[in-house]
């Protein structure tokens, strides 16, 4: 007998959300110091204290046992749930899913999810790095892996080469063009012009994207996300407890996660991501359809990442993403507003962007977004994508009115 996931709809909520980015791309301080600042800020945002926390979720920032090392540092000695699941950029959607399940089943009551990376600051000071302790962990494994054996000898640039092959295949299979992909970067930049924290705030044209140097053809430099420092944290608790807290809660209505492969040459179909599984599962649990979604935050490591997500989540039919985005529908004046903070393409991207999708989704549902606020936002989707189009995790959030 299996549990009907729909019974878990709205039983847990995000009650604290904060991020730190910089328009220079650089944040001062170690990743651990940034994590601590984010946790303090997210708890304050929620109106809770560190003493309330009994669930700890982190997948970077330590050597290997991330949540354990972080809990010790924070002085949390007896958490009821610990989680270091690592699926790349989709990790934070996965951790929200796990936290919601843990809270719903009563394993823990107040969960903290945190992320910090400083690829730029660390580059400047000569230490750390974008992937924190992960490089060290990989070195400990001796560097023997299928990817080292079957992909790297051919000079595949990681991760960009994999995305480029997907874009190439989508173009040959469906006639998608570089201009259509460029429009995704242009629409995303329109949002960034309204975000004073965004790394790039000047308007962008399709021609400027096409004129930027080809990196891995067909992807140009401006088809690719930024490399910046960044950090964020979320606090989650039960729906009952959420109602008494400081700010309006973003209730977890549905979640779904899947992955299709790890290295790009093992992707079964370069034009279909695991979003075709995680999306419908999350929508079914939430009892909503793509048409009900007011706020759409999709992972935009590359322009092609967005195109595939739109199709796999069901916002447009497979293969029709190119003409769909070409109308500028993803921008502030479009019919399908998406990546409202300026995305990984223009706002920030420290390597695992999924945290920022969730923070922006919560802010939109709370009505905190100023000039870029979507009116009457009640249902938001944060759709993370990790690895090389490998893992996806979809979180559907709703205001109290959607319960």
């Amino acid at each position, binding site marked *: 007998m299996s549990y009907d996931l729909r019974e878990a709809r709205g039983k847990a909520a995000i009650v604290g959300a904060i991020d730190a980015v910089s328009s220079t791309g650089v944040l001062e301080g170690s990743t651990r110091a940034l994590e601590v600042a984010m946790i303090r800020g997210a708890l304050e945002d929620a109106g809770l204290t560190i003493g309330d926390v009994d669930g700890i979720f982190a997948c970077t920032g330590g050597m290997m046992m991330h949540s354990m090392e972080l809990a010790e540092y924070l002085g949390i000695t007896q958490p009821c749930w610990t989680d270091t699941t690592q699926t790349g950029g989709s990790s934070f959607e996965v951790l929200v899913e796990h936290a919601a399940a843990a809270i719903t089943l009563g394993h823990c009551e107040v969960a903290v999810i945190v992320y910090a990376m400083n690829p730029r600051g660390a580059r400047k000071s000569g230490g750390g790095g974008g992937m924190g302790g992960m490089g060290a962990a990989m070195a400990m494994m001796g560097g023997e892996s299928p990817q*080292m054996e079957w992909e790297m000898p051919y*000079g595949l640039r990681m991760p960009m080469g994999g995305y480029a*092959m997907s874009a190439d*295949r989508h173009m*040959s*299979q469906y006639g998608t063009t570089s201009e259509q992909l460029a429009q995704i970067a242009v629409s995303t930049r329109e949002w960034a012009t309204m975000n004073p924290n965004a790394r790039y705030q000047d308007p962008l044209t399709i021609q400027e994207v096409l004129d930027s140097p*080809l990196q891995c053809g067909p992807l140009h430099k401006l088809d690719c996300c930024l490399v910046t420092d960044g950090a964020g944290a979320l606090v989650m608790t039960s729906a009952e407890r959420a109602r008494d807290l400081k700010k309006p809660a973003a209730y977890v209505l549905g979640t779904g996660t899947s992955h299709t492969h790890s290295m790009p040459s093992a992707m079964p179909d370069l034009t279909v991501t695991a979003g075709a599984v995680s999306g419908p599962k999350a929508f079914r649990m939430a009892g909503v359809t793509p048409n009900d979604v007011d706020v759409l935050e999709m992972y935009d490591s590359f322009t092609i990442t967005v195109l595939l997500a739109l199709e796999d989540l069901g916002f447009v039919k497979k293969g029709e993403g190119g003409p769909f985005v070409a109308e500028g529908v993803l921008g502030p004046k479009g019919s399908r507003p998406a990546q409202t903070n300026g995305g990984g393409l223009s706002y920030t991207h420290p390597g695992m962007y999924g945290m920022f999708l969730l923070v922006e989704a919560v802010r939109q549902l709370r009505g905190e977004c100023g000039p870029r606020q979507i009116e009457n936002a009640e249902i938001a989707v944060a759709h993370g994508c990790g690895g090389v189009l490998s893992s996806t995790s979809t979180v559907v959030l709703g205001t109290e009115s959607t319960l």
Partner: protein
Amino acid sequence: MEPKASSASQPFWEATKEQKFLLPWCKDCEKPFWYPRVMCPHCLGESIEWKEASGQGSVYASAVHWKPGMPPAGDLKPPFVVSLIDLEEGVRMLSNVIGCEATDVHEGMSVKITWEKLSDGRFLPQFEPAS
């Protein structure tokens, strides 16, 4: 960077010394698979035999590397192309297509195997236009 053989792929790399292109086949479900593993990814069977492949295939997708990352094992200068090749036997592998302009490589293009010498006597399988 030259490939480091794993325990599962020793027979493959040994055969490349004579420029023989072997694929692992599962004796239980009688299907080929790629990349070499200690078991069959279709049925978890552990009875594996190596059969010589035709070396013929077609291009499934490509990325033209204008700004590469780590240097490839072969003697390639940018722009070079990294492609997924659908082999005649029904498996897909990543490789380079050489012997033509990188930007001329396209989906559906027929290719055949060619070999790049590595420093230790092994050869790296690459592909070139079939005609």
